[in-house]
């Protein structure tokens, strides 16, 4: 069998597995967020928090909950890293410097997991397991909570109430992420991912001498890193490291974990708004983009254009033998079209066009299928924009799911889609214009520019993957990427919740013969077109200077 055929078969197997999980998981998540019942352990948690999970919140209250929880999380994670040197279980590692500790705290709370540190050389058991891995759970649960609040905004009328943030946070964590993580972690250990609390120890080698091993709760962190679309590796090599991703099967399983919740949430959406076909239309949009990008990526990586790859006989630099080119391409598209940013192969060593596909994937806003929660709300914002554009074309007030998209709604949606490009392009321009940041580049020319564009694209879109040639552990990059990650995560949430509140207050408009049907293939086509045009217009000039210039030169 040729590697190309094997790659396509792996993609088909992945699609099959996702399809099998779609209905049960999507329906289960809808029940989790709609149920009136609180389990006993959850009641203890609510008592400890001091919150009544039955209290309905309007959008400002819901937002205050999100921001308060996230602000405390940043401070807690910052303090934990700053104190590492005096905490037990730190493997003898020092406390993290202030700028890097801020960057890392912002990164993990913002569900980005950009890493300017080297995992196995900087973070001990306490920070990894008790700090970083916890944010892998809760930052994902926050994303899902905000998405569910927006869905409730469409589903409810004449109320303005969006649910209870604390209940959504706790349920997302303990009813959805935790049980899946336990099962997934054990699957990964069965493949060979390590799971222990050993210290740094020496292990014998074939030719004599010894090598130094870090122990770690790797499998338990690896699984939630993928499942929560986080992406922060236990080790510097991330999911290319054999202790994180030991076999071809574990690799396919990890890709499945990345995609399963974001795709299934469209079923949850359809269920909660009482029209499954609306969910399928959103799913179809995501799937078309994802499959198209994966096909393009496989094509360019197997073709392997680029002087060094042609000299080598294939684009295997930065890729592992056990995965090969096909499985690496599938992983790299899954990670950049969601907000994951885990890597099983190094993006900086992809072909010029391959790097462009990764960049474009993030620049779409990570909505195909996107991060857990953030993918769904990002796509729903695009859906609102698409009906607005269609409404302009036919001269009717646009509606979506029985809600009028008026001036107020479209302002919120427009602000949402402007934030991330503004952060990416302004920070990239500043880094290129200032004298020192460019010293961090490993490669020169178009690829060097791509390294910096990639860094801010990854940060502001909360992805976290890197063209890792860039030395990002400088005060400039730690600070500016940290700021980009926080603003890129929480400002959009403000507009999502404001939009949700505004929609929930409306009374539904009855469907007429003139209403645009948003559950038909025509609408899916319109939505894909809208996404591509908006992203293309925003980023084309920057892409032309980086990956396009590199790709066309080789």
């Amino acid at each position: 069998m040729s590697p190309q055929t094997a790659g396509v078969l792996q993609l088909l197997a992945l699609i099959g597995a996702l399809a099998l999980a779609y209905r049960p998981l999507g329906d289960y998540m809808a029940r989790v967020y709609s149920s009136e019942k609180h389990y006993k352990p959850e009641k203890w948690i609510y008592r400890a928090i001091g919150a009544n999970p039955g209290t309905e919140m309007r959008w400002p209250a819901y937002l205050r909950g999100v921001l308060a929880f996230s602000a405390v999380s940043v401070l807690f994670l910052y303090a934990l890293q700053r104190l590492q040197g005096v905490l037990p279980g730190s493997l003898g590692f020092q406390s993290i410097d202030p700028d890097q500790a801020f960057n890392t705290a912002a990164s993990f709370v913002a569900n980005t997991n950009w890493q300017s540190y080297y995992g196995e050389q900087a973070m001990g058991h306490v920070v990894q397991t008790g700090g970083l891995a916890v944010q892998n759970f809760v930052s994902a649960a926050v994303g899902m909570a905000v998405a569910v609040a927006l869905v409730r905004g469409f589903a409810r009328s004449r109320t303005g109430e969006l649910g209870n943030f604390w209940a959504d946070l706790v349920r997302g964590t303990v009813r959805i992420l935790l049980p899946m993580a336990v099962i997934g972690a054990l699957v990964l250990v069965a493949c060979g991912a390590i799971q222990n609390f050993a210290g740094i120890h020496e292990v014998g080698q074939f030719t004599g001498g010894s090598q130094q091993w870090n122990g770690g709760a790797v499998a338990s962190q690896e699984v939630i890193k993928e499942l929560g679309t986080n992406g922060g590796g236990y080790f510097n090599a991330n999911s290319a490291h054999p202790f994180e991703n030991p076999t071809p099967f574990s690799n396919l399983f990890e890709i499945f974990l990345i995609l399963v919740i974001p795709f299934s949430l469209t079923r949850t959406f359809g269920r909660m708004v009482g029209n499954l076909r609306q969910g399928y239309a959103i799913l179809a949009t995501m799937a078309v983009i994802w499959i198209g990008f994966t096909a393009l990526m496989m094509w360019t990586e197997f073709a392997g254009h680029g002087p060094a790859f042609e000299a080598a006989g294939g684009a295997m630099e930065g890729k592992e033998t056990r995965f090969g080119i096909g499985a690496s391409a599938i992983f790299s598209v899954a990670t950049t079209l969601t907000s994951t940013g885990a890597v099983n192969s190094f993006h900086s060593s992809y072909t010029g066009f391959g790097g462009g596909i990764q960049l474009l994937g993030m620049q779409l806003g990570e909505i195909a299928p996107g991060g857990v929660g953030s993918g769904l709300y990002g796509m729903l914002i695009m859906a609102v924009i698409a009906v607005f554009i269609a409404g302009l074309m036919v001269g009717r007030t646009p509606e979506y799911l029985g809600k009028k998209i008026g001036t107020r709604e479209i302002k919120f949606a427009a602000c949402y889609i402007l934030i991330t490009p503004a952060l990416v392009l302004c920070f990239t321009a500043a880094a290129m214009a200032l004298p020192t940041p460019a010293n961090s580049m490993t490669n020169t020319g178009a690829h060097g520019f791509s390294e910096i564009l990639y860094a801010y694209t990854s940060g502001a879109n909360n992805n976290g993957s890197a063209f890792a040639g860039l030395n990002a552990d400088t005060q400039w990059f730690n600070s500016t990427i940290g700021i980009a990650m926080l603003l890129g995560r929480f400002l959009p949430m403000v507009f999502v919740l404001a939009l949700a509140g505004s929609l929930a207050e409306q009374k539904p408009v009855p469907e007429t013969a003139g209403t645009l049907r948003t559950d038909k293939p025509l609408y899916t086509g319109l939505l894909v077109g809208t996404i591509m045009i908006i992203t293309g217009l925003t980023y084309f000039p920057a892409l032309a200077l980086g990956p396009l210039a590199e790709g066309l030169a080789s």
Partner: protein
Amino acid sequence: MNTSVSTTARLLGAGLRALLVLTVICGVLYPLAVTGIAQALFHDKANGSEIKDKSGQVVGSSLIGQTYHLPKKDPNDAEEAARPDLKWFQPRPSNGLGTNSVNTQYSLILSGATNRSGDNGAVGGQCTKNAEDGTLCAQVIAAKEAVIADNSTATYTVKPADVPADAVTSSGSGLDPDISPAYAKLQIHRVAEKNGLDVKAVEKLVADHTEGRTLGFIGEPRVNVLELNTALKALTGP
């Protein structure tokens, strides 16, 4: 004003308590439970899949690649270039690692890739011998020359077209435990000659240690270098 300050304080207090409770659940109970089950059910794998040689000595992990170098002429010379011990099957190259990033070349202290781009070191869109030192072009060209020179024996000549890509590029983790079957095959004649073994015997050894795709389509066929060399040692050694 006072009420808004106290409301904010109350809210932050709730956030802190929520974080602490969830930290206990997700950061203490969850990893401990998973570790307990993993250690009970998959003890060897959870601790790094160590493998032992014939004498019972631990020689590393089946998941982590190693170097097979000759001892240094002067053990105190940090600058001395490592020379491969051609008795053993060689892993993927690691020369480019650690020059621009901090990877420690198979010693596991720090994992990672070269992060070099496909046009790194190219002049006029071509990789040539004149490529600047330390660039990906220079590494690939040098690695290819070395693979051809090292593996050609009196009766067996390696042609440039026979050299697979994994033999001249470094991996993502810098710890790749595997090589492609093509690269293993290319080393058979050399290994047989250096060890005084029959080519057929080494061919059989490689065939026995070649692992196909999982279920026939997942991943790529591969040969685990440490397992192969351990078996080779058992065949040749005292």
